[in-house]
């Protein structure tokens, strides 16, 4: 599903050029659930951003679902993003003034799906994460675990091939973390590839394998 070959990425701050990814290569098969671990500064956030088509890279290859992601313009990136990828963030990133169901429906809105269809599909996915009773609640009326589940529903609603999760349990207590991970594994069993960036070993242990990142390279 995902193939990275000799990926390089540098950031320029002022006159300093910082090379974050130094020729990274890796391969993730379809249906795998993979953890990416590394200390701060290892480049894992950068890697996740590149995988998520939220940022470009300087050189190397990134093949997603058989298509090359090199040199994509903003529009093309947005298109592929909504077609193939779903995101789950550490701080949930739900839109505060929208209800749960509106949040879940948002990706569909940007795919120009009609209102009726959007709402129906969103409800379906809210059911899948067990939150159909909370459809009309606002994010600030929900607990951390519930918000993350809404975010997961949102990530799933456009039927992505890959879900990228950046420390999905980082803001949750251990019990809720386990619940969320269970949910993610269930989703993974339905065939959706998952990449989870984490610094917690217990979370990594629940994945098929772990990719260790250090100083911009896989070790």
């Amino acid at each position, binding site marked *: 599903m995902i193939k990275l070959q000799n990926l390089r990425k540098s950031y320029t701050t002022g006159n300093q050029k910082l090379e974050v990814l130094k020729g990274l290569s890796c391969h993730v098969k379809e249906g795998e659930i993979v953890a990416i671990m590394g200390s701060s500064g290892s480049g894992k956030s950068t890697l996740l951003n590149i995988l998520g088509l939220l940022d470009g890279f300087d050189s190397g290859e990134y093949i997603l679902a058989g298509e090359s992601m090199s040199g994509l313009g903003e529009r093309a990136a947005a298109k592929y993003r909504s077609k193939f990828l779903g995101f789950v963030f*550490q701080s949930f*990133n739900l839109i505060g*003034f*929208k209800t749960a169901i509106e949040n879940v429906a948002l990706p569909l809105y940007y795919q120009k799906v009609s209102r009726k269809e959007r709402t129906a599909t969103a409800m379906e996915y809210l059911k899948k994460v067990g939150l159909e009773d909370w459809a009309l609640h606002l994010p600030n009326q929900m607990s951390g675990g519930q918000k993350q589940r809404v975010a997961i529903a949102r990530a799933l609603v*456009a039927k992505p091939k890959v879900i990228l999760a950046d420390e999905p349990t980082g803001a949750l207590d251990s019990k809720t973390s386990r619940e969320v991970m269970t949910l993610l594994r269930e989703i993974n069993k339905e065939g959706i590839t998952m990449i989870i960036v984490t610094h917690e070993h217990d979370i990594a242990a629940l994945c098929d394998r772990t990719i260790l990142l250090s100083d911009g390279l896989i070790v």
Partner: protein
Amino acid sequence: MFNRDTWLEIANTVMTHPMRTFLTGLSIALGVFILVVMQGLGFGLQNGVKSQFADDAVNSVWVDSGRTQLSYRGNKANRRIKMRENDVEAMFQQMDTVEVFSRRIRIWGLPMEYRDKQIYFPMRGVDPGHQELENTTLTGGRYISQRDVDEERKVAVVGNNIIEDLYDNADPVGTYLMIQGVQFMVVGTFNDPASRWENKMAYLPFSTAQKIFRNKNSGDVVDQVIVGTGSMPIPETTNMTASLLSWFKERKVVHPDDARGITMENNNEEYERFQNIFMGIELFIWGIGLLTLLAGAVGVANILAIAVKERTKEIGVRKALGASSASVVALVVQESLALMIVSGSAGLVVGVWLLELVSPMIDHEYFKNPQVDYRIALVALAILTLVGVLSGVGPAIRAVSIRPVEALRDE
């Protein structure tokens, strides 16, 4: 573009910061309000002055004489110029057509008596044409006729003040009025709603007034002559007046540059001068109004910039979820537009309401009927829309350039 979702979005953003939105909207509303009210007041001023001029027939030339300023051909300065009958006749001959005219004799105050009551009132001896030239509205009886002048009859037409003060509001037509010991029959009454001075006037036939109230030396003196120019266009009137004036000055041996010996005033020019003043006032009003609106627009742009900054994360999330740049721009500009139109309309409504409220309370000679020209209202709204879009552009561009990467960084 403005579908239900959009409105929900806008409503939400407004509700998040109600006070801030309200204050920004207020500055816009205030700008529009000021523009509308000032425009209405300016209009009222124009109307008032126009109605004053409607009082005096516009197309006329007023010939007057006074004292010379400059010495000329052996004559000293400060010499008194007197127009005489033969001057007037010669002047009429100089003109192509004389449609309406009136000679005038004026005496500032004469004792007028009716039934043991005696009050001083001004008097004018005139020709019948005076009614049209002064735009006198009769309220009873008739005006001075040609026959009155030809036969030197002792008749009078009196103004409203005379009726009030001397006659205690009784109808004077048909009664005898004693003017400086001479009996006159009142044949008509008039009322001039615009001039209190005019209403104190008693009009007599020119010939009668001349004969009775002028001594032998000044028996043929004419104080003033008014000539109607009818439908003659203004440039022609100006030319005619100029050439007539120089002819008359020659005749009475007055220096061509002398501004006081002989004067010929053209009502048209006065009117035109007023028109120019009004145009100036209107430009001024528009200038201020637009500048106020501009200030409001800057305020809106500022607030939008802040709002964009605050919503950086949200915009980043939206972009990550597939939002196009166009939709982000739309998000910002729609809010700006909605804000401007709503607050602008509010300002407009309040401004119009205020003018309507105040309008009947104002009753002044030079101020009538302040009103909003609906074209002005539409223009103001069009400007607002334009400004609203422009205010949104800067912040919108900034919003578009937000990179999801940076926006979503959790550090």
